[in-house]
Protein backbone atom coordinates (compact mmCIF):
# COMPACT_ATOMS: atom_id res chain seq x y z
CA UNK A 1 0.00 0.00 0.00
CA UNK A 2 1.33 3.42 -0.96
CA UNK A 3 -0.15 6.59 0.50
CA UNK A 4 -3.63 5.11 0.67
CA UNK A 5 -6.44 7.39 1.74
CA UNK A 6 -10.04 6.38 1.92
CA UNK A 7 -13.10 8.45 2.70
CA UNK A 8 -16.57 6.99 3.00
CA UNK A 9 -19.35 8.61 0.97
CA UNK A 10 -20.71 10.10 4.21
CA UNK A 11 -17.42 11.97 4.69
CA UNK A 12 -15.84 9.94 7.49
CA UNK A 13 -12.15 9.38 6.83
CA UNK A 14 -11.19 5.77 7.52
CA UNK A 15 -7.62 5.80 6.18
CA UNK A 16 -5.44 8.90 6.14
CA UNK A 17 -2.32 7.91 4.27
CA UNK A 18 -1.31 4.30 4.88
CA UNK A 19 2.05 2.94 3.66
CA UNK A 20 3.36 -0.58 4.05
CA UNK A 21 4.77 -3.49 2.09
CA UNK A 22 4.27 -7.10 3.02
CA UNK A 23 6.39 -9.82 1.43
CA UNK A 24 5.40 -13.32 0.51
CA UNK A 25 5.12 -15.70 3.44
CA UNK A 26 5.06 -13.03 6.13
CA UNK A 27 2.61 -13.19 8.99
CA UNK A 28 1.48 -9.75 10.00
CA UNK A 29 -0.71 -8.58 12.86
CA UNK A 30 -2.86 -5.49 12.45
CA UNK A 31 -3.77 -3.91 15.78
CA UNK A 32 -5.46 -0.69 16.83
CA UNK A 33 -8.43 0.68 18.72
CA UNK A 34 -12.04 0.39 17.50
CA UNK A 35 -12.49 2.43 14.37
CA UNK A 36 -8.73 2.73 13.75
CA UNK A 37 -9.18 1.40 10.22
CA UNK A 38 -8.15 -2.27 10.46
CA UNK A 39 -11.17 -3.64 8.63
CA UNK A 40 -10.87 -0.88 6.04
CA UNK A 41 -7.30 -1.92 5.22
CA UNK A 42 -8.30 -5.56 4.75
CA UNK A 43 -11.25 -4.58 2.59
CA UNK A 44 -8.89 -2.56 0.39
CA UNK A 45 -6.55 -5.51 -0.02
CA UNK A 46 -9.46 -7.64 -1.22
CA UNK A 47 -10.64 -4.92 -3.57
CA UNK A 48 -13.98 -4.47 -1.82
CA UNK A 49 -13.12 -0.81 -1.29
CA UNK A 50 -11.06 1.05 -3.86
CA UNK A 51 -8.67 3.68 -2.49
CA UNK A 52 -9.74 7.30 -2.94
CA UNK A 53 -6.06 8.21 -3.22
CA UNK A 54 -2.80 6.26 -3.36
CA UNK A 55 -2.13 2.77 -4.66
CA UNK A 56 -2.81 -0.77 -3.42
CA UNK A 57 -0.89 -3.63 -5.02
CA UNK A 58 -1.38 -7.34 -4.45
CA UNK A 59 1.50 -9.37 -5.87
CA UNK A 60 2.04 -8.00 -9.37
CA UNK A 61 -1.43 -6.55 -9.62
CA UNK A 62 -2.53 -3.03 -8.81
CA UNK A 63 -5.97 -3.34 -7.20
CA UNK A 64 -8.43 -1.65 -9.54
CA UNK A 65 -11.74 -2.40 -11.13
CA UNK A 66 -10.14 -4.20 -14.06
CA UNK A 67 -7.92 -6.48 -11.95
CA UNK A 68 -10.46 -7.53 -9.32
CA UNK A 69 -10.82 -11.07 -10.65
CA UNK A 70 -7.05 -11.67 -10.59
CA UNK A 71 -6.67 -10.09 -7.16
CA UNK A 72 -9.47 -12.08 -5.62
CA UNK A 73 -8.14 -15.31 -7.01
CA UNK A 74 -5.12 -14.77 -4.73
CA UNK A 75 -6.68 -13.15 -1.72
CA UNK A 76 -9.05 -14.77 0.77
CA UNK A 77 -10.83 -12.44 3.17
CA UNK A 78 -12.71 -13.57 6.26
CA UNK A 79 -15.13 -10.81 7.24
CA UNK A 80 -15.44 -9.43 10.74
CA UNK A 81 -19.12 -10.43 10.88
CA UNK A 82 -19.51 -14.10 9.89
CA UNK A 83 -23.14 -13.44 8.96
CA UNK A 84 -21.87 -11.42 6.02
CA UNK A 85 -19.91 -14.38 4.82
CA UNK A 86 -22.50 -17.13 5.01
CA UNK A 87 -25.42 -17.09 2.63
CA UNK A 88 -26.04 -20.60 1.34
CA UNK A 89 -28.65 -22.93 2.85
CA UNK A 90 -26.22 -25.40 4.38
CA UNK A 91 -22.69 -25.19 5.72
CA UNK A 92 -21.50 -27.63 3.07
CA UNK A 93 -22.92 -25.56 0.24
CA UNK A 94 -21.50 -22.42 1.74
CA UNK A 95 -17.99 -23.82 1.90
CA UNK A 96 -18.41 -25.30 -1.59
CA UNK A 97 -19.51 -21.95 -3.03
CA UNK A 98 -16.00 -20.63 -3.70
CA UNK A 99 -14.53 -23.84 -5.18
CA UNK A 100 -17.66 -24.22 -7.34
CA UNK A 101 -17.03 -20.74 -8.71
CA UNK A 102 -13.53 -21.87 -9.62
CA UNK A 103 -15.20 -24.51 -11.82
CA UNK A 104 -13.50 -27.40 -10.04
CA UNK A 105 -14.82 -30.93 -10.66
CA UNK A 106 -17.33 -32.07 -7.98
CA UNK A 107 -15.09 -34.70 -6.34
CA UNK A 108 -12.39 -32.11 -5.79
CA UNK A 109 -14.92 -29.62 -4.44
CA UNK A 110 -16.07 -32.22 -1.96
CA UNK A 111 -12.50 -32.96 -0.92
CA UNK A 112 -11.73 -29.27 -0.40
CA UNK A 113 -14.86 -28.75 1.66
CA UNK A 114 -13.95 -31.73 3.83
CA UNK A 115 -10.41 -30.45 4.37
CA UNK A 116 -11.48 -26.90 5.11
CA UNK A 117 -14.10 -27.99 7.64
CA UNK A 118 -11.61 -30.35 9.29
CA UNK A 119 -9.10 -27.49 9.67
CA UNK A 120 -11.57 -25.52 11.77
CA UNK A 121 -12.96 -28.56 13.59
CA UNK A 122 -16.41 -28.23 12.04
CA UNK A 123 -16.77 -31.51 10.10
CA UNK A 124 -19.90 -32.35 12.03
CA UNK A 125 -21.68 -29.16 10.94
CA UNK A 126 -21.74 -29.93 7.21
CA UNK A 127 -25.45 -30.46 6.74
CA UNK A 128 -26.64 -27.78 9.19
CA UNK A 129 -28.12 -24.52 7.91
CA UNK A 130 -25.60 -21.71 8.39
CA UNK A 131 -28.20 -19.42 9.93
CA UNK A 132 -28.81 -21.82 12.76
CA UNK A 133 -25.30 -22.06 14.18
CA UNK A 134 -23.87 -20.54 17.33
CA UNK A 135 -21.70 -17.42 17.00
CA UNK A 136 -18.41 -19.28 17.32
CA UNK A 137 -19.51 -22.07 14.98
CA UNK A 138 -20.40 -19.45 12.39
CA UNK A 139 -16.96 -17.90 12.70
CA UNK A 140 -15.30 -21.26 12.26
CA UNK A 141 -17.40 -21.99 9.18
CA UNK A 142 -16.74 -18.52 7.75
CA UNK A 143 -13.02 -19.26 8.03
CA UNK A 144 -13.56 -22.61 6.29
CA UNK A 145 -15.35 -20.95 3.36
CA UNK A 146 -12.17 -19.00 2.65
CA UNK A 147 -9.72 -21.85 3.33
CA UNK A 148 -11.52 -23.92 0.71
CA UNK A 149 -10.36 -21.37 -1.87
CA UNK A 150 -6.67 -22.12 -1.17
CA UNK A 151 -5.71 -18.43 -1.19
CA UNK A 152 -2.10 -17.22 -1.49
CA UNK A 153 -2.86 -14.38 0.89
CA UNK A 154 -5.16 -14.84 3.84
CA UNK A 155 -6.83 -11.81 5.43
CA UNK A 156 -8.52 -12.42 8.76
CA UNK A 157 -10.66 -9.83 10.53
CA UNK A 158 -11.03 -10.64 14.24
CA UNK A 159 -10.72 -14.40 13.72
CA UNK A 160 -10.68 -15.32 17.40
CA UNK A 161 -13.65 -13.26 18.64
CA UNK A 162 -16.20 -15.53 20.24
CA UNK A 163 -14.16 -18.72 19.87
CA UNK A 164 -13.86 -21.10 22.79
CA UNK A 165 -10.30 -21.52 24.17
CA UNK A 166 -9.71 -24.86 22.45
CA UNK A 167 -10.86 -23.63 19.07
CA UNK A 168 -8.88 -20.44 19.51
CA UNK A 169 -5.77 -22.44 20.39
CA UNK A 170 -6.28 -24.60 17.30
CA UNK A 171 -6.66 -21.44 15.20
CA UNK A 172 -3.37 -20.09 16.54
CA UNK A 173 -1.58 -23.34 15.88
CA UNK A 174 -3.04 -23.50 12.42
CA UNK A 175 -2.11 -19.88 11.65
CA UNK A 176 1.47 -20.71 12.61
CA UNK A 177 1.52 -23.59 10.14
CA UNK A 178 -0.05 -21.73 7.20
CA UNK A 179 2.87 -21.17 4.85
CA UNK A 180 1.45 -18.36 2.73
CA UNK A 181 1.07 -14.69 3.56
CA UNK A 182 -1.40 -13.92 6.31
CA UNK A 183 -2.64 -10.65 7.76
CA UNK A 184 -4.61 -10.79 10.98
CA UNK A 185 -6.57 -7.82 12.32
CA UNK A 186 -7.32 -8.47 15.96
CA UNK A 187 -7.80 -7.11 19.43
CA UNK A 188 -6.58 -10.45 20.74
CA UNK A 189 -2.99 -9.30 21.23
CA UNK A 190 -1.98 -12.65 22.66
CA UNK A 191 -3.08 -14.27 19.42
CA UNK A 192 -1.03 -11.74 17.46
CA UNK A 193 1.92 -12.38 19.75
CA UNK A 194 1.67 -16.11 19.14
CA UNK A 195 1.02 -16.17 15.42
CA UNK A 196 2.55 -13.07 13.81
CA UNK A 197 6.22 -12.16 13.39
CA UNK A 198 5.48 -8.60 12.38
CA UNK A 199 2.88 -6.11 13.55
CA UNK A 200 1.41 -2.87 12.25
CA UNK A 201 -0.05 -0.57 14.90
CA UNK A 202 -2.85 1.60 13.60
CA UNK A 203 -4.38 4.72 15.12
CA UNK A 204 -7.00 6.97 13.53
CA UNK A 205 -6.36 5.79 9.99
CA UNK A 206 -2.55 5.98 10.14
CA UNK A 207 0.16 3.46 10.84
CA UNK A 208 2.04 4.65 13.93
CA UNK A 209 4.42 1.71 14.26
CA UNK A 210 5.63 -1.18 12.12
CA UNK A 211 8.10 -3.78 13.35
CA UNK A 212 8.67 -7.13 15.02
CA UNK A 213 5.62 -8.13 17.04
CA UNK A 214 7.51 -8.86 20.20
CA UNK A 215 9.16 -5.43 20.47
CA UNK A 216 6.00 -3.48 19.62
CA UNK A 217 3.59 -5.37 21.85
CA UNK A 218 5.86 -5.03 24.87
CA UNK A 219 6.04 -1.24 24.44
CA UNK A 220 3.41 -0.06 26.90
CA UNK A 221 3.72 3.61 25.92
CA UNK A 222 3.17 2.88 22.23
CA UNK A 223 0.19 0.65 22.94
CA UNK A 224 -1.37 3.29 25.12
CA UNK A 225 -1.07 5.85 22.33
CA UNK A 226 -2.92 3.41 20.10
CA UNK A 227 -5.67 2.91 22.67
CA UNK A 228 -4.47 -0.60 23.55
CA UNK A 229 -3.00 -2.41 26.53
CA UNK A 230 -0.20 -4.90 26.99
CA UNK A 231 -1.13 -8.44 26.01
CA UNK A 232 -2.72 -10.20 29.01
CA UNK A 233 0.14 -12.62 29.25
CA UNK A 234 2.60 -9.75 29.83
CA UNK A 235 0.47 -7.92 32.36
CA UNK A 236 1.31 -10.23 35.26
CA UNK A 237 -1.62 -11.67 37.14
CA UNK A 238 -3.14 -9.10 39.51
CA UNK A 239 -5.11 -11.84 41.24
CA UNK A 240 -2.98 -14.05 43.43
CA UNK A 241 -4.50 -17.46 43.93
CA UNK A 242 -5.36 -18.49 47.48
CA UNK A 243 -3.46 -21.35 48.87
Amino acid at each position, binding site marked *: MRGVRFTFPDGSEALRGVDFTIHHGESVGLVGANGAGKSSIL*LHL*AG*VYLASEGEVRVGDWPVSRST*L*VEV*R*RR*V*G*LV*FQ*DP*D*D*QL*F*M*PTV*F*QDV*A*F*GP*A*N*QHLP*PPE*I*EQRVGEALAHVGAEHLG*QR*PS*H*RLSGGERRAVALA*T*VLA*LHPDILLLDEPSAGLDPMTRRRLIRWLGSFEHTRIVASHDLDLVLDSCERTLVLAAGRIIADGPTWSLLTDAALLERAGLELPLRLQGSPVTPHR
Partner: protein
Amino acid sequence: MTPIDRAISHLHSLDASARLDSPLGRLDARAKVLVTLGFLVTVASFGRHQLLQPLPLVILLSAGWALSEIPVRSLGFRLAIASPVAVLIGMWNPLFEPEPMLRLGSMVVSAGWVSFLSILERFLLGMAAVLLLIGSTGVDAVAAALGRLGVPRVLVTQLLLLYRYVFVLAAEVERMLRAHSLRAPNRPRPELRTVRSMLGELLLRSLARAERVHAAMLCRGFAGELRAVTPLRLGLGDALFVLAGLGFLALVRLADLPRAIGNLLR
Protein backbone atom coordinates in the same frame (compact mmCIF):
# COMPACT_ATOMS: atom_id res chain seq x y z
CA MET B 1 -39.32 -17.00 19.43
CA THR B 2 -41.04 -14.21 17.55
CA PRO B 3 -43.49 -14.97 14.73
CA ILE B 4 -40.85 -13.95 12.22
CA ASP B 5 -38.34 -16.32 13.70
CA ARG B 6 -40.93 -19.07 13.51
CA ALA B 7 -41.70 -18.28 9.90
CA ILE B 8 -38.01 -18.49 9.03
CA SER B 9 -37.81 -21.81 10.82
CA HIS B 10 -40.69 -23.11 8.74
CA LEU B 11 -39.08 -22.05 5.49
CA HIS B 12 -35.88 -23.69 6.62
CA SER B 13 -37.54 -26.88 7.71
CA LEU B 14 -39.25 -27.11 4.32
CA ASP B 15 -35.90 -26.77 2.61
CA ALA B 16 -34.35 -29.14 5.14
CA SER B 17 -36.97 -31.80 4.56
CA ALA B 18 -35.51 -32.06 1.05
CA ARG B 19 -32.65 -33.92 2.67
CA LEU B 20 -34.93 -36.73 3.84
CA ASP B 21 -33.98 -39.84 1.93
CA SER B 22 -37.42 -40.66 0.54
CA PRO B 23 -38.49 -42.33 -2.73
CA LEU B 24 -39.70 -38.98 -4.05
CA GLY B 25 -36.61 -37.21 -2.76
CA ARG B 26 -34.33 -39.54 -4.71
CA LEU B 27 -35.96 -38.74 -8.05
CA ASP B 28 -34.18 -36.34 -10.38
CA ALA B 29 -35.17 -32.73 -9.73
CA ARG B 30 -35.98 -32.21 -13.41
CA ALA B 31 -38.55 -35.01 -13.42
CA LYS B 32 -40.28 -33.46 -10.42
CA VAL B 33 -40.17 -29.97 -11.88
CA LEU B 34 -41.74 -31.24 -15.12
CA VAL B 35 -44.59 -33.04 -13.38
CA THR B 36 -45.20 -30.06 -11.09
CA LEU B 37 -45.36 -27.71 -14.06
CA GLY B 38 -47.80 -30.09 -15.75
CA PHE B 39 -49.83 -30.14 -12.56
CA LEU B 40 -49.96 -26.34 -12.39
CA VAL B 41 -51.00 -26.04 -16.03
CA THR B 42 -53.72 -28.64 -15.51
CA VAL B 43 -55.03 -26.91 -12.40
CA ALA B 44 -55.07 -23.55 -14.14
CA SER B 45 -56.81 -24.91 -17.21
CA PHE B 46 -60.05 -25.80 -15.43
CA GLY B 47 -62.89 -23.31 -15.80
CA ARG B 48 -63.93 -21.28 -12.79
CA HIS B 49 -67.22 -23.13 -12.43
CA GLN B 50 -65.73 -26.61 -12.56
CA LEU B 51 -65.60 -27.52 -8.89
CA LEU B 52 -65.57 -31.31 -9.03
CA GLN B 53 -63.40 -32.06 -12.04
CA PRO B 54 -60.05 -31.05 -10.46
CA LEU B 55 -60.70 -33.09 -7.30
CA PRO B 56 -59.02 -36.31 -8.55
CA LEU B 57 -55.76 -34.35 -8.54
CA VAL B 58 -55.82 -34.78 -4.78
CA ILE B 59 -55.06 -38.46 -5.42
CA LEU B 60 -51.87 -37.54 -7.24
CA LEU B 61 -50.88 -35.11 -4.48
CA SER B 62 -51.50 -37.67 -1.76
CA ALA B 63 -49.47 -40.26 -3.62
CA GLY B 64 -46.62 -37.78 -3.97
CA TRP B 65 -46.92 -36.81 -0.34
CA ALA B 66 -46.82 -40.40 0.82
CA LEU B 67 -43.70 -41.00 -1.29
CA SER B 68 -42.03 -37.88 0.07
CA GLU B 69 -42.36 -38.95 3.73
CA ILE B 70 -42.80 -35.32 4.78
CA PRO B 71 -44.98 -35.05 7.92
CA VAL B 72 -48.58 -34.16 6.92
CA ARG B 73 -48.79 -31.62 9.72
CA SER B 74 -46.20 -29.37 8.10
CA LEU B 75 -48.14 -29.31 4.81
CA GLY B 76 -51.39 -28.37 6.50
CA PHE B 77 -49.73 -25.57 8.41
CA ARG B 78 -48.09 -24.01 5.40
CA LEU B 79 -51.24 -24.22 3.31
CA ALA B 80 -53.07 -22.45 6.11
CA ILE B 81 -50.49 -19.65 6.06
CA ALA B 82 -50.92 -19.19 2.34
CA SER B 83 -54.69 -19.48 1.99
CA PRO B 84 -55.61 -15.93 3.09
CA VAL B 85 -54.11 -14.77 -0.20
CA ALA B 86 -56.58 -16.92 -2.16
CA VAL B 87 -59.45 -15.76 0.01
CA LEU B 88 -58.51 -12.16 -0.74
CA ILE B 89 -58.40 -12.81 -4.46
CA GLY B 90 -61.69 -14.66 -4.64
CA MET B 91 -63.59 -12.77 -1.98
CA TRP B 92 -65.50 -10.44 -4.36
CA ASN B 93 -66.77 -13.11 -6.73
CA PRO B 94 -69.95 -13.87 -4.76
CA LEU B 95 -70.91 -10.18 -5.21
CA PHE B 96 -70.21 -10.11 -8.93
CA GLU B 97 -72.00 -13.31 -9.90
CA PRO B 98 -75.25 -13.51 -7.95
CA GLU B 99 -77.10 -15.81 -10.42
CA PRO B 100 -77.96 -19.24 -8.95
CA MET B 101 -75.89 -22.14 -10.13
CA LEU B 102 -76.14 -25.16 -7.85
CA ARG B 103 -78.82 -26.55 -5.64
CA LEU B 104 -77.72 -28.49 -2.54
CA GLY B 105 -80.92 -29.70 -0.90
CA SER B 106 -82.89 -26.56 -0.24
CA MET B 107 -79.81 -24.30 -0.44
CA VAL B 108 -79.14 -22.33 -3.61
CA VAL B 109 -75.50 -21.63 -4.35
CA SER B 110 -74.77 -18.68 -6.64
CA ALA B 111 -72.24 -18.78 -9.44
CA GLY B 112 -70.11 -16.32 -7.47
CA TRP B 113 -69.72 -18.70 -4.57
CA VAL B 114 -68.86 -21.54 -6.91
CA SER B 115 -66.12 -19.52 -8.56
CA PHE B 116 -64.88 -18.39 -5.15
CA LEU B 117 -64.58 -21.99 -4.01
CA SER B 118 -62.99 -22.91 -7.30
CA ILE B 119 -60.29 -20.25 -6.87
CA LEU B 120 -59.62 -21.46 -3.37
CA GLU B 121 -59.54 -25.07 -4.52
CA ARG B 122 -57.16 -24.43 -7.38
CA PHE B 123 -54.94 -22.21 -5.28
CA LEU B 124 -54.61 -24.82 -2.56
CA LEU B 125 -53.94 -27.58 -5.08
CA GLY B 126 -51.23 -25.56 -6.82
CA MET B 127 -49.70 -24.42 -3.56
CA ALA B 128 -49.60 -27.97 -2.21
CA ALA B 129 -47.88 -29.16 -5.38
CA VAL B 130 -45.22 -26.44 -5.14
CA LEU B 131 -44.65 -27.10 -1.44
CA LEU B 132 -44.30 -30.79 -2.22
CA LEU B 133 -41.78 -30.03 -4.97
CA ILE B 134 -39.65 -27.80 -2.74
CA GLY B 135 -40.04 -30.04 0.28
CA SER B 136 -38.87 -33.10 -1.60
CA THR B 137 -36.22 -31.42 -3.73
CA GLY B 138 -34.87 -28.26 -2.07
CA VAL B 139 -34.84 -24.79 -3.55
CA ASP B 140 -31.33 -25.15 -4.93
CA ALA B 141 -31.97 -28.38 -6.77
CA VAL B 142 -35.21 -26.95 -8.17
CA ALA B 143 -33.26 -23.95 -9.43
CA ALA B 144 -30.56 -26.19 -10.91
CA ALA B 145 -33.27 -28.25 -12.65
CA LEU B 146 -34.91 -25.12 -14.05
CA GLY B 147 -31.53 -24.07 -15.42
CA ARG B 148 -31.02 -27.46 -17.07
CA LEU B 149 -34.52 -27.35 -18.51
CA GLY B 150 -33.62 -24.20 -20.41
CA VAL B 151 -34.74 -21.39 -18.11
CA PRO B 152 -32.20 -18.55 -18.56
CA ARG B 153 -29.36 -18.54 -16.01
CA VAL B 154 -30.00 -14.96 -15.04
CA LEU B 155 -33.56 -15.76 -14.01
CA VAL B 156 -32.50 -18.81 -12.01
CA THR B 157 -29.81 -16.83 -10.19
CA GLN B 158 -32.29 -14.05 -9.48
CA LEU B 159 -34.66 -16.59 -8.02
CA LEU B 160 -31.99 -18.04 -5.76
CA LEU B 161 -30.74 -14.65 -4.60
CA LEU B 162 -34.29 -13.56 -3.89
CA TYR B 163 -34.74 -16.65 -1.78
CA ARG B 164 -31.53 -15.87 0.13
CA TYR B 165 -32.50 -12.26 0.50
CA VAL B 166 -35.72 -13.19 2.28
CA PHE B 167 -33.58 -14.71 5.02
CA VAL B 168 -31.27 -11.73 5.20
CA LEU B 169 -34.21 -9.36 5.53
CA ALA B 170 -36.02 -11.53 8.04
CA ALA B 171 -32.89 -11.86 10.15
CA GLU B 172 -32.58 -8.06 10.30
CA VAL B 173 -36.20 -7.66 11.39
CA GLU B 174 -35.69 -10.34 13.95
CA ARG B 175 -32.64 -8.62 15.43
CA MET B 176 -34.29 -5.22 15.58
CA LEU B 177 -37.36 -6.59 17.32
CA ARG B 178 -35.23 -8.47 19.77
CA ALA B 179 -33.12 -5.40 20.51
CA HIS B 180 -36.28 -3.38 20.97
CA SER B 181 -37.95 -5.86 23.28
CA LEU B 182 -34.84 -6.08 25.44
CA ARG B 183 -34.70 -2.34 25.93
CA ALA B 184 -38.45 -1.80 26.22
CA PRO B 185 -39.58 -4.89 28.09
CA ASN B 186 -42.79 -3.24 29.25
CA ARG B 187 -44.06 -2.67 25.70
CA PRO B 188 -45.07 -5.81 23.81
CA ARG B 189 -44.83 -4.11 20.42
CA PRO B 190 -43.13 -0.92 19.31
CA GLU B 191 -45.13 2.33 19.09
CA LEU B 192 -46.10 3.59 15.66
CA ARG B 193 -43.46 6.32 15.85
CA THR B 194 -40.77 3.76 16.61
CA VAL B 195 -42.04 1.43 13.90
CA ARG B 196 -41.67 4.19 11.33
CA SER B 197 -38.05 4.86 12.15
CA MET B 198 -37.41 1.12 12.42
CA LEU B 199 -38.72 0.59 8.89
CA GLY B 200 -36.40 3.25 7.51
CA GLU B 201 -33.53 1.74 9.47
CA LEU B 202 -34.48 -1.71 8.22
CA LEU B 203 -34.25 -0.60 4.61
CA LEU B 204 -30.82 0.96 5.13
CA ARG B 205 -29.54 -1.95 7.15
CA SER B 206 -30.68 -4.61 4.76
CA LEU B 207 -29.20 -2.65 1.86
CA ALA B 208 -25.87 -2.35 3.71
CA ARG B 209 -25.97 -6.01 4.57
CA ALA B 210 -26.90 -7.05 1.04
CA GLU B 211 -23.91 -5.03 -0.11
CA ARG B 212 -21.58 -6.80 2.31
CA VAL B 213 -22.93 -10.22 1.42
CA HIS B 214 -22.47 -9.37 -2.24
CA ALA B 215 -18.89 -8.31 -1.50
CA ALA B 216 -18.30 -11.60 0.28
CA MET B 217 -19.65 -13.47 -2.73
CA LEU B 218 -17.39 -11.53 -5.11
CA CYS B 219 -14.42 -12.26 -2.86
CA ARG B 220 -15.07 -15.93 -3.36
CA GLY B 221 -15.11 -15.70 -7.12
CA PHE B 222 -18.83 -15.21 -7.75
CA ALA B 223 -19.27 -14.42 -11.44
CA GLY B 224 -23.00 -13.92 -11.64
CA GLU B 225 -24.06 -17.51 -11.51
CA LEU B 226 -24.81 -19.82 -8.59
CA ARG B 227 -23.63 -23.31 -9.36
CA ALA B 228 -25.22 -26.42 -8.00
CA VAL B 229 -22.79 -28.87 -6.47
CA THR B 230 -24.91 -32.00 -6.66
CA PRO B 231 -24.99 -33.47 -10.16
CA LEU B 232 -28.36 -34.34 -11.70
CA ARG B 233 -28.90 -37.84 -13.04
CA LEU B 234 -31.91 -39.07 -15.00
CA GLY B 235 -32.78 -42.75 -14.62
CA LEU B 236 -35.51 -45.19 -15.58
CA GLY B 237 -37.41 -44.40 -12.39
CA ASP B 238 -37.49 -40.72 -13.31
CA ALA B 239 -38.85 -41.49 -16.77
CA LEU B 240 -41.58 -43.71 -15.31
CA PHE B 241 -42.45 -41.02 -12.78
CA VAL B 242 -42.81 -38.37 -15.49
CA LEU B 243 -44.89 -40.68 -17.71
CA ALA B 244 -47.19 -41.77 -14.90
CA GLY B 245 -47.56 -38.25 -13.52
CA LEU B 246 -48.28 -36.54 -16.82
CA GLY B 247 -50.50 -39.43 -17.91
CA PHE B 248 -52.66 -39.10 -14.84
CA LEU B 249 -52.86 -35.34 -15.32
CA ALA B 250 -54.02 -35.78 -18.92
CA LEU B 251 -56.63 -38.29 -17.79
CA VAL B 252 -57.99 -35.89 -15.16
CA ARG B 253 -58.04 -33.03 -17.64
CA LEU B 254 -59.56 -34.84 -20.63
CA ALA B 255 -61.94 -37.28 -18.99
CA ASP B 256 -64.43 -36.03 -16.42
CA LEU B 257 -63.49 -38.58 -13.77
CA PRO B 258 -66.03 -37.66 -11.07
CA ARG B 259 -68.87 -37.92 -13.59
CA ALA B 260 -67.54 -41.19 -15.00
CA ILE B 261 -67.40 -42.68 -11.53
CA GLY B 262 -70.90 -41.39 -10.81
CA ASN B 263 -72.18 -43.04 -14.01
CA LEU B 264 -70.50 -46.30 -13.11
CA LEU B 265 -72.17 -46.36 -9.71
CA ARG B 266 -75.59 -45.60 -11.10
